[in-house]
């Protein structure tokens, strides 16, 4: 009986573990990998307590946090997929280049030999990582999408690193040719070389992972740099890695050593080491087999095929007693797979889901497109008209007014509008009004705020500034959401209260939000859904900013997972986006430590290039079907949050 190849067995165990982590990535983390946290300072009497990131491993953040407050454990788990994809793709591309060239070189091709020699020698002199560093630090790599970045990184790493693989394969071909004294059948040669190439695929993947690890240490990350503009105002400088992946996490290694924040380097390095060991063990295990005889490889492959065959499984049942161990293991695996497939990620929390009415939304948008609402700049009569319109609609829908006033005689009065005076960061004094109404839920805990801004630009030269794409569509959607959710609550009351908040000052650092914090149901325990630019956008993507849900507010992350499922179920693709202070209202909520989601039909780049400060007066530009679908998606997101049972939430 052939001895067990422990290298392959352990390598496979590591690989299965990695696959499980990739498959269950978001299910095994409790904090959103895109969530950032700027820390907080508390005053306890004269003493000031502050939480500054990065934090060492603690009860909430098992692997600690990075300087942006991101949870290292979440970044590790979600980042595995991107890192392994690049490594595997690069190894595949290298094989595609190296195998044919090595083959022809091995059987006497002079040009292919020189080609291999050139690449091998050149990248021996100038290290592969140094060339990679120079290429990947070009500006273009910080602007491309993740998918394109993965493809380009893989291709470039394949081109600069195939020489070594080709040389080793060529040496093997040469050995066989010399052994057979030149009379070698190409088919047999392929048969002998294939196991070598197969083993090299794994060892090469390990080698690429090592390269990625070193490139990461040198400061290279994969994909757009959306957090690059955040000023950390400490020694950490800027952070460029946005998408979770291991190389980007190692960008901080040098600074982590100096600041003794070793966890920032140790966990990604251990991740790299673990995965490199896995791939290398499989590769070296196969090479060990081939060294004995190349047919051992084919025998093992055949053996694997035999054990995985459904026919074998059925035959084993015929001789149940003899094959008990095999049957038990295989049945367990089948049950687990079926369980995974059958378990829905997201279940609707209500029996009958109300549908939003597209005609109602269109009616609101058409109304707001009229000249008497035009612009909605703060302090104008148009914004006052808009406010009156929203207030009237909320009243008609039957929402309860959110603002409480105490009269002179002690009587309490309620209103939808609260006026405020505030100073902007530039020292300008502004007067504004927040509008809010609510649906009372069974509990006051963790209320939902559906928020959008109803103002638009403060000034435009030519006067055509209706702001239809930004706040026009979102006011329409919010009013329709209010109507539909109210109808839904009449079927069965929601578990959580829902506040509809319309705020102005979106062009003045969102100071209206600072003024409304602390009002009924609007505080740091609330969860907001902010939206704008609905029914527009070039693609079928929904741009979602989930960066405000830090590990301190990790309870909300479950809802983010459901949100993503809901968006996908409604036919949209989810694209993570970081708007930062481009959108003032959600940024003001973030600064007030309120967690939530920003939902937009356009990306930040599209906003800055095509919408920011531009005329938005063409009502025909709006895609009303898309607007209705966006609103329905928001409706389901709201229902998912507000109607999920207390039991499911655990509080």
């Amino acid at each position, binding site marked *: 009986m052939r001895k067990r190849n422990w290298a392959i067995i352990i390598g496979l165990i590591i690989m299965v573990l990695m696959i499980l982590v990739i498959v269950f990535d978001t299910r095994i983390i409790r904090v959103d990998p895109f969530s950032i946290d700027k820390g907080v300072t508390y005053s306890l009497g004269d003493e000031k307590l502050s939480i500054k990131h990065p934090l060492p491993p603690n009860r909430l953040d098992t692997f600690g946090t990075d300087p942006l407050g991101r949870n290292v454990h979440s970044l590790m788990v979600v980042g595995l997929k991107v890192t392994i994809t690049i490594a595997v793709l690069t190894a595949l591309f290298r094989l595609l280049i190296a195998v044919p060239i090595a083959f022809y070189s091995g059987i006497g091709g002079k040009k292919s030999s020189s080609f291999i020699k050139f690449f091998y020698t050149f990248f021996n002199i100038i290290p592969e990582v140094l060339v990679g560093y*120079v290429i990947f630090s070009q500006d*273009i790599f910080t602007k491309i999408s993740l998918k*394109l970045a993965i493809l380009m990184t893989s291709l470039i790493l394949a081109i600069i690193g195939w020489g070594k693989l080709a040389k080793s394969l060529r040496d093997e071909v040469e050995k066989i040719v010399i052994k057979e004294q030149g009379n070698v059948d190409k088919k047999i040669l392929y048969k002998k070389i294939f196991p070598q190439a197969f083993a090299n695929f794994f060892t090469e993947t390990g080698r690429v992972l090592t390269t990625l690890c070193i490139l990461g240490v040198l400061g290279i990350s994969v994909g757009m740099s959306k957090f690059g503009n955040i000023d950390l105002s400490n020694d950490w400088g800027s952070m460029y890695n946005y998408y979770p992946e291991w190389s980007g996490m190692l960008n901080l290694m040098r600074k982590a050593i100096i600041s003794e924040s070793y966890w920032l380097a140790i966990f990604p390095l251990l991740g790299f080491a673990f995965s490199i060991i896995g791939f*290398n063990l499989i590769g070296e295990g196969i090479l060990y087999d081939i060294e004995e005889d190349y047919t051992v490889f084919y025998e093992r492959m055949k053996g694997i095929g035999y054990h995985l065959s459904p026919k074998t499984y059925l035959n084993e049942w015929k001789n149940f007693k003899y094959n008990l161990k095999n049957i038990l293991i295989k049945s367990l695996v089948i049950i687990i797979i079926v369980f995974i497939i059958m378990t829905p990620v997201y279940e609707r929390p209500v029996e009958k889901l109300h549908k939003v009415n597209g005609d109602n939304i269109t009616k609101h948008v058409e109304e707001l497109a009229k000249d008497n609402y035009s612009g909605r700049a703060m302090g104008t009569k148009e914004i006052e008209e808009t406010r009156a319109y929203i207030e009237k609609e909320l009243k008609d829908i039957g929402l309860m007014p959110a603002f409480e006033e105490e009269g002179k005689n002690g009587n309490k009065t309620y209103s939808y509008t609260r006026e405020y005076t505030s100073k902007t960061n530039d020292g300008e004094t502004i007067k504004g009004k927040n509008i809010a109404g609510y649906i009372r839920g069974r509990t006051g805990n963790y209320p939902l705020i559906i928020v959008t801004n109803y103002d638009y630009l403060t000034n435009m030269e030519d006067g055509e500034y209706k702001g239809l794409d930004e706040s026009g569509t979102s006011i329409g959607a919010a009013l329709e959401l209010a109507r539909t959710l109210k109808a839904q609550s009449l079927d069965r009351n929601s578990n959580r209260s829902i506040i509809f908040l319309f705020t102005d000052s979106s062009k003045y650092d969102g100071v209206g939000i600072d003024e409304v914090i602390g009002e009924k149901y609007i505080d740091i325990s609330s969860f907001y859904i902010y939206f704008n630019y609905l029914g527009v956008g070039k693609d079928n993507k929904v741009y979602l900013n989930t960066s405000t849900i830090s590990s301190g507010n990790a309870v909300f992350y479950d809802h983010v997972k459901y949100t993503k499922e809901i968006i996908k179920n409604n036919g949209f693709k989810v694209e993570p986006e970081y708007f930062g202070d481009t959108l003032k209202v959600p940024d003001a909520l973030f600064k007030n430590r309120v967690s939530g989601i920003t939902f937009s039909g356009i990306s930040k780049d599209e906003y800055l290039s095509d919408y920011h400060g531009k005329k938005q007066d063409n009502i025909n530009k709006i895609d009303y079907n898309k607007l209705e679908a966006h609103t329905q998606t928001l409706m389901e997101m709201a229902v998912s949050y507000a109607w999920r049972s207390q039991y499911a939430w655990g509080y």
Partner: protein
Amino acid sequence: MIIMKLPQNAISYNTTEKKIKINISWRELGRIIKDSYKNLFKGSLGVDSKGNCVWREIKPFFKNTLILILSTIVISILLGIPIGAYNTKKARTKEGIRRTLWKTILKSLPEPLIILVLYLIILKVFNFKSIVLRNTFKISFKDYIVPIIALSIFPIMKASKITSESIIATYDSQYLISAKLKGASNVKIFKDHLIKNVFIDSMEEFSSLMALIFANLVVVEYLFYFPGLINKLIESYVNKDMNTVFSIAFVIGLIFIIINVVFRIIKNVIDPINDEDVSSGNKVII
């Protein structure tokens, strides 16, 4: 190296159209290459972006890197060959799967992890506050110790592997068996045949050892803020001083080639096998 000299907008990405655009003509590319080489040979490696002589700017960094590389080579040979010879007995018996397993695990540990662990051990054992060097290019002998140790780990492993493989191959060769049969003493066999052949084989594999040292040099210099050529290259690249970057890349290539040539000459002096005879397929053992 051409990529380093390209203007930042040479290749751009249109985020709204989602297309990559190349904004440079072949003529412009040719001019950049020509200018780069022209600058390189203008005086001492040309001038940097501030108008200073590049060679004068990089000279102290060159010295530090050269000391680091040469020390690593010496340590790798001095330690790698005896370790390899010591391991030969184990390696001669057919390599078991468990040995493959452990070897693979050790080989798979990424260099930055080993450096970090080494760093933490040294901090703990010697009670140092910090080992990293910052904002200085004048360093003392003590400052070389940790970078040299960190840089030498993998080359020592590689040198010992080359040595043990070479000893095994030499042991099984016909001429050594003949020498044994003719009654040559073990000391004579070791002195006249074995050590010489092992050394020649090591020289033969030297370019791969050098490649390993150069690749690891990037990590060691960067992580320890070592004032060497690699750090200077990265710093110049970040500061968009492309003439200095180009010159440093040229100097690194030159160091690699010179060291390789030196070792090839040593090998050719010691090696009794004529290269031409080998290339024509007739191995002649003198």
